């Protein structure tokens, strides 16, 4: 099992969570959508895997570099 932590590249709010823990994802599937400076910014899966844990909730304020989700790539 290889775990990949997905971090935020920006400071903003969590607008929508698109994939719950346990969801199978392909590379570039949208996991959640952040809102920052009026922009909606999708956070995509960096590779194929299964979402092990979502670390934030809708409406949360998040900082640049903050952990958002953990992906199990199964390697």
């Amino acid at each position, binding site marked *: 099992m290889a775990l990949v932590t997905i971090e935020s590249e920006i400071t903003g*709010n969590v*607008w929508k969570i698109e994939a719950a823990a346990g969801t199978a994802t392909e590379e570039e599937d949208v996991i959640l*959508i952040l809102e920052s400076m009026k*922009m909606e*910014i999708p956070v995509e899966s960096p590779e194929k895997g299964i979402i092990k844990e979502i670390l934030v909730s809708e409406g949360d304020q998040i900082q640049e570099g903050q952990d958002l989700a953990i992906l199990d790539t199964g390697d």
Partner: protein
Amino acid sequence: MKAAVLREANKPLEIEEVQVSKPGPREVLVRPVAAGVCHSDLHFLDGSYPYPMPTILGHESAGIVEQVGRDVTYVKKGDHVITCLSAFCGHCNKCLTGHLSLCASPEVSRAASEQSRLSIQGETVHQFLNLSSFAELMLIHEHALVKVREDMPMDRAALIGCSTTTGVGAVFHTAAVEPGSKVAVIGCGGVGLAAINGAAIAGAGQIIAVDMVDSKLELAKAVGATHTINASSGNAVGEVIEMTQGGCDYTFEAIGLKATAEQAFQMLCSGGTATVIGMIPVGTMVELHGVDFLAEKKIQGSNMGSNRFRVDMPRFVDFYLAGKLHLDEMISKHIKLADINLALEALKTGQEARHVIMFDQ
């Protein structure tokens, strides 16, 4: 209604039939008359700024109020308005300290749990920057528009919705340029030209326009540049330092590149301020020579000209009608919505000013 829908980065927009929700209590339905095709739209089209899809781009428009929500008192059906992406809540810390353009309150957009403002047969269409103006109708928060006088031509008014406010506002508000000062503007697209025009209105003594396209440098002269530099022919930083005998009090970067942001800082005299307006791609780092801070050189960002748009935009309209703000020169072509992809392609070449979509009324 018809709208230009983006379903995948780097693919043409497609004209599709899109459903618009009914106005919520504080929402306004606007029928756009004109919409500018802005270079910022390209950043989202090419994926350098990722955005959820499908979406409808466009964020620079003027139109007429069609319908208002039950709690809206600011506008009524028939009012002429300019839209602005700097929607403000009016009661957060940023708003209450005068920084309305930095308001990050989610209440100006619909929550993820609500019906989306835009959809295609039940599929959510993500509203772009709370606006999405490449469409025959816009459903927006009442704090995303400003009333303007009805003798203002709508195509010119549309430009005030983004490029003018961004460029002029960066000069007036973010940098607060002093009369008589020395200014350089890197990049002479719509925003850079607006910054040059703003510097002229602010009374700057020397205004140097920097670009790599001669036709844009000619436009820069028409809107207030006192000097021009074609950066493709040599060392723009060195030329600015020489022309100003030591550097500028204020520089503005209006492209969105690491190299030009760094050049804007290098062009400063001691105590000068560089303002980065351009959208530098996510993940890009900017490098500065640390010793320059001993000379009190400063660098700062500017988002939408640090605007207070309900105050600023009617003033810009007055500036235009008084002949001080040059908007006629900014429009290179009027097009139909169906020709949107041609306009976006033209923007990529960097050779033209702005195309403006005119909607059938």
